């Protein structure tokens, strides 16, 4: 296979890599270029990459000697990642100036992180998996600590780095175990080996699988590997937190699905227990621990832990409906998260960012439209129909019922009731409480437009479920075509 074909197959990635390098050069050598312009250019690059991805049909399925794969699943997930990255970067355009972190490296690092995520999704080999994951992680460690003068930001970056490296180490250990016991790193070859073997897999393989699952569970911040999430979310600058909460979660989830449903599909009996456990633990902890939170960013951290638990219900089901559920869930989660962080970014009083839940008090009087958007997002996160969040849960629980995981489903829906409590509390603070200081107005074109996009997607999903559901269905099918 010629290198040209390979490059065409990975065109969006190649384009992103080149633009990141060009922007790095621009930033380094053109001192008069403001960080905002670099970030705007980066948003443009992501937009173009999206176009390349969306209209670049007819790419080869495998590229770079089978290290890289393209199918409906990667396409759907990459689209989500690019949308998530793009929207969160647009949101941060104003905030990087306000938060005194206007450095051109910000946008460049986020571009590299996005590139890493795309690579993760397309990984078809243990090596390319690790490469994509590390590219993403390293860029994000730095971004989390971007506000060097802020103690909290540095602490968040360091924590993220230390714990992240630990997880990467575990992952790498797992990968080497799998390689050691099978002699290959290719997903196809691994899948063949597991499909052809008789009896139980060897203990070494199981240990390797568990380590891989643990490493990836860290990246999606599933319980019991979630400890970094609240601290990093709280400590990192809000714009960075928004980025962390959206696209990387989608990418890591896609990677987990790819690994477990791809090469390890025949070990489903082994990994299903693990996934059921981390799903249950994440749903319960995410729901219960968030109740006591008074900081919006910490609350969103626990909320994201809970959401990951719900999405994992789909993966635990391990069937086509389950993968569709995961894909739909991540799509809707992305828009809900982006929208919520747009509001958190808008929480500024007298030029200073505030983060407490109580700071939202009386928002329905001081800024009714913002409060309405937040209420819609919160009801959606709680899974109340007719908003999109309900359908996200609907699809994953549908898969769980189909797979006969009734206990998981029952505990899951009850956890969602508990979780509803803290989402309702935010609505209560906004609508029932007396008004506090009003937020600085106007919140800015960037935030308003992102907020509009996410709220409209969440609201009209009930009328037009087509695009997301069809895409997710196609994505799920791509795992099962070979089996048919």
């Amino acid at each position: 296979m010629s290198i040209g074909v390979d490059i065409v197959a990975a065109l969006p990635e190649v384009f992103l890599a080149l633009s990141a390098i060009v922007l790095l050069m621009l930033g380094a050598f053109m001192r008069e270029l403001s960080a905002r312009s670099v970030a705007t250019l980066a948003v443009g690059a992501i937009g173009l990459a999206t176009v390349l991805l969306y209209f670049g049909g007819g790419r080869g399925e495998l590229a770079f000697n089978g290290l890289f794969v393209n199918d409906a699943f990667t396409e759907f997930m990459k689209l989500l990642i690019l949308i998530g990255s793009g929207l969160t970067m647009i949101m941060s355009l104003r905030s990087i100036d306000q938060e005194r972190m206007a450095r051109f490296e910000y946008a460049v690092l986020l571009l590299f992180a996005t590139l890493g995520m795309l690579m993760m999704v397309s990984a078809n080999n243990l090596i390319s998996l690790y490469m994509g994951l590390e590219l993403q992680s390293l860029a994000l460690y730095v971004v989390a600590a971007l506000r060097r003068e802020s103690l909290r930001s540095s602490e968040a970056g360091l924590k993220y780095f230390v714990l992240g490296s630990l997880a990467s180490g575990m992952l790498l250990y797992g990968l080497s175990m799998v390689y050691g016991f099978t002699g290959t790193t290719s997903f196809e070859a691994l899948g063949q080996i597991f499909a052809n073997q008789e009896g139980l897999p060897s203990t070494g393989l199981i240990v390797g699988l568990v380590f891989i699952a643990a490493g990836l569970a860290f990246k999606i911040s599933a319980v019991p590997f979630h400890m970094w999430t609240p601290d990093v979310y709280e400590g990192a600058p809000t714009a960075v937190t928004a980025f962390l909460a959206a696209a990387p979660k989608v990418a890591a989830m896609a990677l987990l699905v790819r690994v477990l449903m791809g090469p390890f599909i025949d070990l489903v009996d082994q990994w299903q227990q693990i996934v059921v456990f981390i799903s249950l633990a994440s749903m319960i902890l995410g729901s219960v621990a968030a109740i006591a939170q008074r900081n919006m960013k910490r609350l969103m951290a626990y909320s994201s832990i809970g959401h990951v638990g719900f999405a994992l219900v789909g993966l635990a089901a391990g069937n086509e409906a389950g993968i569709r559920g995961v894909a739909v869930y991540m799509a809707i989660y992305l828009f809900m998260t982006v929208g919520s962080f747009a509001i958190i970014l808008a929480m500024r009083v007298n030029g200073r960012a505030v983060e407490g839940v109580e700071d939202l008090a009386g928002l329905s009087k001081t800024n009714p439209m913002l409060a309405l958007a937040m209420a819609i997002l919160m009801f959606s996160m709680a899974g109340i129909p007719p908003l999109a969040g309900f359908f996200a849960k609907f699809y994953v629980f549908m898969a769980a019922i189909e797979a006969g995981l009734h206990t998981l489903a029952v505990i899951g829906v009850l956890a969602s009731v508990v979780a509803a409590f803290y989402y309702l509390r935010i609505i209560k603070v906004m609508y029932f409480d007396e008004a506090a200081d009003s937020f600085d107005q106007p919140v800015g074109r960037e935030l308003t437009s992102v907020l509009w996009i996410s709220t409209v997607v969440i609201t009209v999903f009930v009328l037009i479920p087509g695009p997301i559901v069809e895409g997710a269905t196609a994505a799920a099918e791509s795992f099962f075509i070979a089996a048919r």
Partner: protein
Amino acid sequence: MSTWPLLSLVTFLPLVGAFFILTARGDEETVATSARYVALWTSLITFLLSLFIWFGFERGTAEFQFVERVEWIPSLNIAYHMGVDGISMPFVLLSTLLVPLCVLASWDSVKTRVKEYMIAFLVLETFMVGMFCALDFVAFYIFFEGVLIPMFLIIGVWGGVRRVYAAFKFFLYTLAGSVLMLLAMLTLYFITGTTDIPTLIYEAEIPRNVQLWLWLAFFAAFAVKVPMWPVHTWLPDAHVEAPTAGSVILAGVLLKMGAYGFLRFSVPMLPEASAYFTPLVFTLSVVAIIYTSLVALVQNDMKKLIAYSSVAHMGYVTAGIFTATQQGVEGAIFQMLSHGVVSAALFLCVGVVYDRLHTREIDAYGGLASNMPRYALVFMVFMLASVGLPGTSGFVGEFLVIMGSFQISTWLGLLVASGMVLGAAYMLLLYRRVIFGVITRENVRRMLDLGWREKTVFAPLILLALIFGIYPMPVLDVMSASVENLINNYQLALGEQPAPNLLAQLLPQSWGGAL
């Protein structure tokens, strides 16, 4: 008219009104006034449109009518399917009737955030009507749950002192029940491959052991909504704290959603499980009737008293439904409609005095008959209708339910009937303490009698309570074919035995002994 998507029109017209109110601009007073008028006109036009359903409805058939069907999520075989039969149609009318009255009743009493208030009510109307019309599980569930959003806000924003507690309790209680129903619906979907309600009613055959689990899941959702003892505790809180119009909708329509669920899902789709659990339902209903009546006797808060009386009245409804006799089920539905009118009106009555004195303490009043004679008359009509005096709508429903219960077991009939006596006790006590006696307080003496707007609100409700008490046939005609069909299918599913005998076998000795 048949080419019009009448049900969708009635369902979604209020949303259009809500959208207009949302876009209203101007200073606060102008927006409030226009919001009131838009809400009133929208809900009135919706009511007029729903009259077309009433008159265009073909009596004497159990078919679903005004059916609309549009593909919604084709890959899952889920459609937007609407239609009404004799069981659901009256509730659509009840909902569309109560909303304009609520708007009128809140005309002056709601002064803050009128715009949002009216939007919440119109959105609520859409969800309520949609729920009664939906013939697809997913659509049903969306409407069923969607109701929580506006109601949560109505209680929480415009409610009383403990409104936050009440709103949360209401929301979480109901949500906890309904999510289990969602799982049951998904399970049904995987057994039968469809979410279409008529198909499930007529064709679904579900193994008995699965039925039992599904029934319990549905029961969790509907029992909370009804509410049945012992999961009724959210209701007094929600009623007491909600603004008057919120209580009216809560008592008038939302409580009916649970019982409607039993009629639409539990009994026709899970007949064997329904038969199996009938003793449980009877027990809980009887406890509800007697226990909550006794609780109502000692209340000092007017709204709380009426709230407890609602629980007792809904006890008749659940008992009636599960007798699975023509009289019992028709009585249950009639009782629901009557309760929808009467208890809604009673909450409006409380609202009238609350607007003037801003307290719901019974002891704060007394002697209103002398300075508010018209109010005393109106209150008396509804009080007697609630007690079930012959000639009022309350009598017909309760009488039919008691008849149905006697066919099942004398004991059941006796215990259910005891509720009428207790009901008379607490309602008459309430009436005596509020209306009769000598006025001792200056602020009570200064209270004014009903204004013209209040009279307008009460007039249609009085008419309905009296007309349906004297001549209930129009309502019974509408539902009889559907009810008959429901019972026939139910007995067919239980093996072509007449239901009472089979039920008698299942009942414990204390229930069945009298047969």
